[in-house]
C-alpha cells in the first residue's frame, strides 16, 4: 500500500526583546546562572507578571507577515505542570484566545509554490534550564536565566506533505522572523526550534492517521531528517501490520534515530485556565494598522523586486533573499556600481561556498561589499581575468586585504600588451613544431593546447581573449 505523510510543525521563536516576557530582567545570553532573575521569574510568593509590550508588538508583526488575523482581545492562560525548570509550576501561555489566528505563508519546492496554513501564533514564556554538572555529581542544578524569556509559538496546519516542504517552511519562518528583526534565528542556540507532528495515511484517505510528535529539532537538516526517519518508521510499522502509538519522540541527531519519550496515556493534563493576574490583551486597531504600514520588506516581496529590478532569475533571487543579511550585502555591492548579474553569481556561488566551507556568516566575512565591488571592477576593466579573480577572492577572504593590493603584491595583473604576448606566442610555436605541423595538417583540436601553453608561460596572467586572437593569427587556418 502507498502512504501519504501528513505533517504539521510547531515552531518556537525566542524573541529578541531586551527584557523578559513578564519582568524587566535581561534576556542576554551567557551570564552566570540565576543572575538574570527577579521575584517574578523566580516565581517568588506574591510576585506578579507584567506584559512586555514589545513582545506583543513582535507577535503582531509576525502575525501580519504571515497573513494572520490579529485578535484584538487575546488572553493569557496558565499551563500547569511540575518541573524544576518551571518556577511557578505553570507556564504563562495562551490557550483558546491566541493573539494571531488563521494565516498562511507560501513556500517554494522544486520551482513550485505551495501555500501552508498557519493555525495560530501565540505568546508564552520560556522555562529555565537544568544543569547536570556541578559540585555534586548526583545533583541537578537549576538555572533560571532563561525562565520568562518571551517566545512565539507558530503552529502550522497539517498541510505539509514532505520533509522537503517542512524544511522549506522552516526556512521561510526563519527568514520571516529574521527579516522582522524579532528573533535572531540561531537554531543551534535554540533561538528557533521546531516540533514536528507526523502521521501517515493511505493515499486517497481523508482521515488522518495517528500522529507522533518529534521534539526539539534544532536545525533545518534535523527537521528534514527526523521527518524522513519518522515517515519510514511509521510506514514499516503499518506494513508489518502494527499500529502507530500516539507519542512524543525525541530525535537523536547523531544517531539519526528517534526514541519514544512518553506515550499519550502518560501525557499531562495541563489544566489550562485564564491567567487571573493578567487582564485581556487589548490591542488598538490603530496599532495594528501602524504595524502593517511599518512592516519591513519581506522575503517574497524582496525576491520579486530583485527579479524585476536586477533582472535576476527567480532562483538566484530566492537564494539571495533567503538570508536578509546576504540580500543587504548584495544590494550594497550593486550600489557601488557592480553588475547585478555578475554580483549575484559571485555572491551565490563563490561567496556562499567559502562561507559554508569556513562556517562563517556573512557578517563575519572579511570581504565587505566595497571589496567585492572593487574586485568586480578589476575584472570589468580587464586588470585581471575571471580566473585570477577567484584566487584574489580567496586570498581576500582569508586576509581581508583589498583586492587591488593583492593584485599588485602578487603581480597578478593581466598581460594585455600585444607585442609582449606575441613574442611569447612565437616562442611557443618554435618549441612545439610537431604540434604546429599536426594542427596545420587538420588537427584543429590542438588550438586549445597552444592557448594553454600561453597561460602556462604567463602563470595565467595572459589576457585570454588576446591570446586567442594572436594564436589564431600566427597559426593560420587549420
Amino acid at each position, binding site marked *: 500500500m502507498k502512504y501519504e505523510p501528513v505533517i504539521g510543525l510547531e515552531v518556537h521563536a525566542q524573541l529578541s526583546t531586551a527584557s523578559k516576557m513578564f519582568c524587566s530582567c535581561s534576556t542576554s545570553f551567557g551570564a552566570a546562572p540565576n543572575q538574570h532573575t527577579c*521575584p517574578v521569574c*523566580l*516565581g*517568588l*510568593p*506574591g*510576585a*506578579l*507578571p*507584567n*506584559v512586555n509590550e514589545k513582545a506583543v508588538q513582535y507577535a503582531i508583526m509576525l502575525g501580519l507577515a504571515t497573513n494572520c488575523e490579529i485578535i484584538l482581545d487575546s488572553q493569557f492562560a*496558565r499551563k*500547569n505542570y*511540575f518541573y*524544576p525548570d518551571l*518556577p*511557578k*509550576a*505553570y507556564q504563562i501561555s495562551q490557550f483558546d484566545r491566541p493573539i494571531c489566528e488563521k494565516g498562511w505563508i507560501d513556500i517554494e519546492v522544486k520551482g513550485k509554490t505551495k501555500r501552508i496554513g498557519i493555525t495560530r501564533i501565540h505568546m508564552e514564556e520560556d522555562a529555565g534550564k537544568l544543569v547536570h554538572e556541578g559540585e555534586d555529581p548526583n545533583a541537578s542544578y*537549576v538555572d533560571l536565566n532563561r525562565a520568562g524569556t518571551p517566545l512565539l509559538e507558530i503552529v502550522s496546519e497539517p498541510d505539509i506533505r514532505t520533509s522537503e516542504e517542512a524544511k522549506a517552511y522552516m526556512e521561510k519562518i526563519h527568514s520571516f522572523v529574521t527579516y522582522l528583526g524579532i528573533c535572531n534565528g540561531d537554531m543551534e542556540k535554540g533561538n528557533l526550534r521546531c516540533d514536528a507532528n507526523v502521521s501517515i495515511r493511505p493515499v486517497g484517505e481523508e482521515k488522518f492517521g495517528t500522529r507522533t510528535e518529534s521534539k526539539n529539532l534544532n536545525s533545518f537538516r534535523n527537521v528534514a531528517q527526523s521527518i524522513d526517519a519518522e515517515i519510514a518508521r511509521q510506514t514499516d510499522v503499518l506494513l508489518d501490520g502494527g499500529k502507530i502509538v500516539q507519542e512524543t519522540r525525541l530525535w537523536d541527531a547523531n544517531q539519526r534515530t528517534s526514541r519514544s519519550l512518553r506515550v499519550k496515556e502518560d501525557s499531562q*493534563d495541563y*489544566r*489550562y*485556565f485564564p491567567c*487571573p*493576574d*493578567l*487582564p485581556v490583551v487589548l490591542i488598538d486597531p490603530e496599532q495594528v494598522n501602524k504595524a502593517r504600514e511599518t512592516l519591513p520588506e519581506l522575503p517574497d516581496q524582496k525576491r520579486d523586486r530583485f527579479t524585476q529590478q536586477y533582472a535576476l532569475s527567480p532562483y538566484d533571487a530566492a537564494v539571495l533573499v533567503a538570508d536578509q543579511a546576504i540580500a543587504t550585502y548584495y544590494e550594497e555591492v550593486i550600489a557601488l556600481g557592480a553588475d547585478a548579474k555578475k554580483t549575484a553569481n559571485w555572491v551565490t556561488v563563490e561567496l556562499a561556498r567559502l562561507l559554508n566551507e569556513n562556517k562563517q556568516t556573512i557578517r563575519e566575512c572579511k570581504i565587505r561589499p566595497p571589496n567585492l565591488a572593487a574586485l568586480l571592477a578589476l575584472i570589468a576593466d580587464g586588470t585581471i581575468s575571471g580566473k585570477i579573480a577567484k584566487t584574489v577572492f580567496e586570498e581576500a577572504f582569508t586576509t581581508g586585504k583589498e583586492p587591488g593590493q593583492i593584485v599588485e603584491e602578487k603581480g597578478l595583473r593581466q598581460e594585455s600588451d600585444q607585442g609582449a604576448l606575441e613574442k611569447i606566442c612565437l616562442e611557443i610555436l618554435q618549441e612545439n613544431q610537431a604540434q604546429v605541423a599536426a594542427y596545420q595538417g587538420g588537427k584543429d583540436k590542438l588550438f586549445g593546447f597552444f592557448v594553454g601553453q600561453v597561460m602556462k608561460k604567463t602563470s595565467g596572467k595572459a589576457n585570454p581573449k588576446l591570446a586567442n586572437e594572436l594564436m589564431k593569427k600566427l597559426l593560420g587556418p587549420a
Partner: protein
Amino acid sequence: MKLYQKPIHTLHQQRLAKEVTTEEIAQSVLQRITETEQRLGSYLAVEQSEAVMERAKAVDQQLQKGEEVNPLAGMPIAVKDIFNIKGQATTCASEMLKNFIAPYESTVTQKLLAQGYNLVGKTNMDEFAMGSSTEHSAFQVTKNPWDLERVPGGSSGGSASAVAAGQALAALGTDTGGSIRQPASFCGIVGVKPTYGRVSRWGIVAYASSLDQAGPMTRDVEDAALMLEAIMGHDKNDSTSLTATPPDLMASLRQEVKGMKIGVIQDLDLSACDSEVQRVFAENLETLKQGGAEICPVSLPNLQHAVATYYVLAPSEASSNLGRYDGIRYGYRSPEAKNLGEVYQLSREAGLGREVKLRILLGTFALSAGYYDAYYLKAQQVQNLIRAQFQKAFTQVDAIVSPVTPTPAFKLNAHLADPLQMYLSDAFTIPGNLAGIPGISVPAGFTQEGLPVGLQILGGLLQEEKIFRLAHWFEQNQTLSPPPLAL
C-alpha cells in the same frame, strides 16, 4: 481610656496638641502585647521593642522640630503574615514557608513605610488565607478577645484580635471571600475590602488572584479611611490594579446619610441566621431609617449560588498559585525525598496543611480535562451573573446592607470537622468578592452573650466614598454599649 484603646486619628490630634507622645503610644501598645499575647496568640512575630520605640522616638523628634507629621507616622500597626516585608519571614502560617525570608517588599507595606508607619509584628492567619477561623494556622490558635473560647474569625484573625485587644492600633488584612470583614465582625472592629484592583497585590502571597484584595482593619471608620487612603492607588507592578483616581475618603466622612437609598437583599434568607444577629440587623435598619435613609428591597436571585461558585473559582486559582511550593527553590523540602517525584510529593504532603491540600485537590479537579466546563467555566458564568445583578442593583440603591455573618464568633473547634459549615460563615461576604465590589464591616451591636456583631455595607464598583459615608454616619449615630473584653 488607655492609649492602646484609642483610634489613630484621636491619638494624632492629641500628640499634635502635645497631650501625648508617640513614644507613650508605642509603649502602651507594646505593654499590652506583653500582657495579653500569651493568652491571645495574635502574632506570629513581634518586632523588637527597641526598634518600635526607636521609630516612635524619631517621629516625636520630628514633631518637636515642628515638622509636619503624617497621622500614621510612628503609630504601631500590625501586618498579616501574608505581606512580604523585605528581610522578614513571610510564613503565611504554613510549615511550607516557615523559613522563607522575603527578599522584596509588598507595595502596600511600601506605601505604609512611606507614611512612616511603625510595624509591631506579623499576625496569625489561616494557612495561605484559607479558612474562616484562623484555626488552620500551622503554628498557633488565636483567640477572640471578647471570649477566649471563641475564634477571632479568619483568615485575618490575628490582625482582628490584635486590633480588638489593643495589641496594635490598626492592622492590614486580606480578603478573598470575607477574610477581612468576617474577623472584623467577630472581633468588633472595622474592616474594609476595597474594590478589586484598588489596592496593589504586588508582594502579597496569592490565594485566589482574581478575588484577593488587601484592606485595613481598624478601631473606627475614620482610621480605616486614613489607612485605605495610604495604601490604595495604581501600581504598575500589578496588571490588575486600577488606574481610577483614588477617592477622597476623608471628605466622604463629613456627609449625612439623609437621602441615601439603601438596599436590603430580598433573596437573603435571614431566618437561618442566629436570632441575635437578626435582632441587631433589624435595629441597624431602624437606625438608618431614623437618619433619613430610604430602605429599598433589592433582588439578587443568584446569590444563593455564591458560596458554591466561590468554592470552585477560589480553589481552582489556588491549585495553580500554590504549585510553586514544590520544595525546589525555597520553602520546605522533605529530607526523606530521594528523587524528584518524592521532593514534590513528600514536601507538599508535609509542608501544606489539611485545608490547603483539600482546596488544592478541589481546584485541581475543577480544572481537569472533562470537568472544566462543568465546574470552572460554569462557576465563571454564575460569577458574571452575580456581577451583573449587583451592577443592576446599584443603579437603584447607593449601598446594600446585610449582617456580615450568619452567626457571631463561634467556639474553637466548632466547625473544624465540618468544612461546609465553616464555608457557610462566609455566605454574606463572598458575593462582594465575586462581584469585585467594595464592602465594609462596621461594629453594629452585641449579642446577649456579649459578642460583637457587624453590619456589612456593600457599594458599587469604585463607590468606596458611599460606603464610608454610610459607615461613618452609622458608627457615629448608633449607641453601642460594649461589654468588657475578656482580657
